[in-house]
């Protein structure tokens, strides 16, 4: 195993262990997403047809807001006892840390999605009219789009005084193209009226561009004062 993948695997396993013990991120994410589902279901009383049209937006906005909670937690535990300094003085590559954090967040948000999707289906009486299997690439690519930028911008806002506020301010504008693609692709699949292919290709392109950009810039962010 190369040094990068070995260190990334060790860091990911450490993060999963810490989360398993503290459950800081997953509990707050789940509670937040649950609140959004329940409040929206009380606020609107859509028909099945209307549900199919608005569910894409509702689902992804709920996941985006909930993901921000996890993204803030990711780096917060590295600041306690200044553990991040121990990583910075080590010869470990910066990108191993970034990839581990991004994959960790991907797992946390995926768990959230897996738990919340059945609730969305029940609360909004959802039944897809298009090819349901396409929701899998949309979910995978969309989740990666959220966490890769989220992990990067959470690291960037690490040393700012109000980082909880700073993260959404940085993340939401840059996530608009991805969010648009996720919402449109999900709506297209649920209504079955148009093909979701274009939006899926857009998500692939977005992920490639931003993953590359984040990997190129992360070392500078990690060692910034």
């Amino acid at each position, binding site marked *: 195993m190369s*040094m990068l993948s*070995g*260190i990334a695997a*060790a*860091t990911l396993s*450490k993060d999963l*262990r*810490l989360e398993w*013990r*503290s459950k800081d991120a997953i509990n707050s994410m789940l509670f937040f997403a649950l609140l959004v589902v329940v409040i929206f279901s009380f606020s609107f009383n859509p028909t099945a047809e209307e549900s199919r049209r608005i569910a894409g937006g509702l689902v992804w906005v709920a996941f985006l807001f909930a993901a921000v909670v996890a993204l803030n937690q990711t780096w917060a*535990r590295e600041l*306690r*006892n*200044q*553990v991040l*300094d*121990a*990583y*910075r*003085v*080590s*010869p*470990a590559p910066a990108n191993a840390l970034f990839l581990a954090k991004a994959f960790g967040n991907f797992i946390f948000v995926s768990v959230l999605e897996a738990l919340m999707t059945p609730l969305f289906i029940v609360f909004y009486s959802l039944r897809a009219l298009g090819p349901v299997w396409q929701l899998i690439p949309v979910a995978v690519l969309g989740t990666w789009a959220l966490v890769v930028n989220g992990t990067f911008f959470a690291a960037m806002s690490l040393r700012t005084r109000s980082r909880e506020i700073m993260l959404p301010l940085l993340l939401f504008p840059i996530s608009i193209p991805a969010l648009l693609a996720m919402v449109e692709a999900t709506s297209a699949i649920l209504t079955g009226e148009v093909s979701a292919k274009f939006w899926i290709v857009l998500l692939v392109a977005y992920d490639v561009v931003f993953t590359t950009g984040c990997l190129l810039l992360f070392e500078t962010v990690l*060692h910034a*004062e």
Partner: protein
Amino acid sequence: MVPSDSERFQHGYRPPVIVINDLVKHFGRFAALRGLTASFDAARIYTILGDNGAGKTTLLRALAGLVRPTRGCISVLGTTDLSSVRPQFGYMAHPSLLYDEMNGMENLRYFARLYGIEDDQRCSKTIARVGLDPELRRPIGQYSQGMRQRMSLARALLHDPKIFLLDEPFSNVDVSSAREMVKLLAEMRDTGKTILVVTHQAQLLEGAADEYVRMQAGQIVDRTLELQPLRSPWQGQDPHPGGAEER
């Protein structure tokens, strides 16, 4: 007095491990280091003393590559590219640099991986070396402050670096444990390691330290082979004479 560089050379000394030239570090308008020039040799323990705000911690952080100098140059083991000599630093800060939710062995196992060390035996031996039990399953968060300091030292020792940068390693450690730590540092010095210890408890290092480096207002003001009696801070000493902290 400490011998000059030319005297050291004549007596067969090896070139210094750390050479600092005109090091300046500003945090905004505050000058933490003000034109510091010094060199540190292999196989010696340096005790760095000074009042709060004298620049001791900033000096260690600059050497470890954690803060970028505003001006000046640091050369370590013959190179100014500090990132290339990162494996040669054992850094211990005032906070523990450990994860509170994991036990000592889990912490060390993780940090060992960062240095490409896969050997769990080495982690166990290092924990035992600082006088702790590798089998202890309690998370670090439930350790006493002294145990945490010793585990932090174990983390710094783990990858067998050539240079140790230790910031207040004895704070909240009981005297007998501190003496054990000093003994360990002396053993490491005897194997050729360079050890820089920032401390307010210099007496603990008497007999082990090779040199005492006194800092004031971001500069080294004195280097002695014996521990000099401390001047009382109540004698009206201004750590930043002439308002020098402001650029």
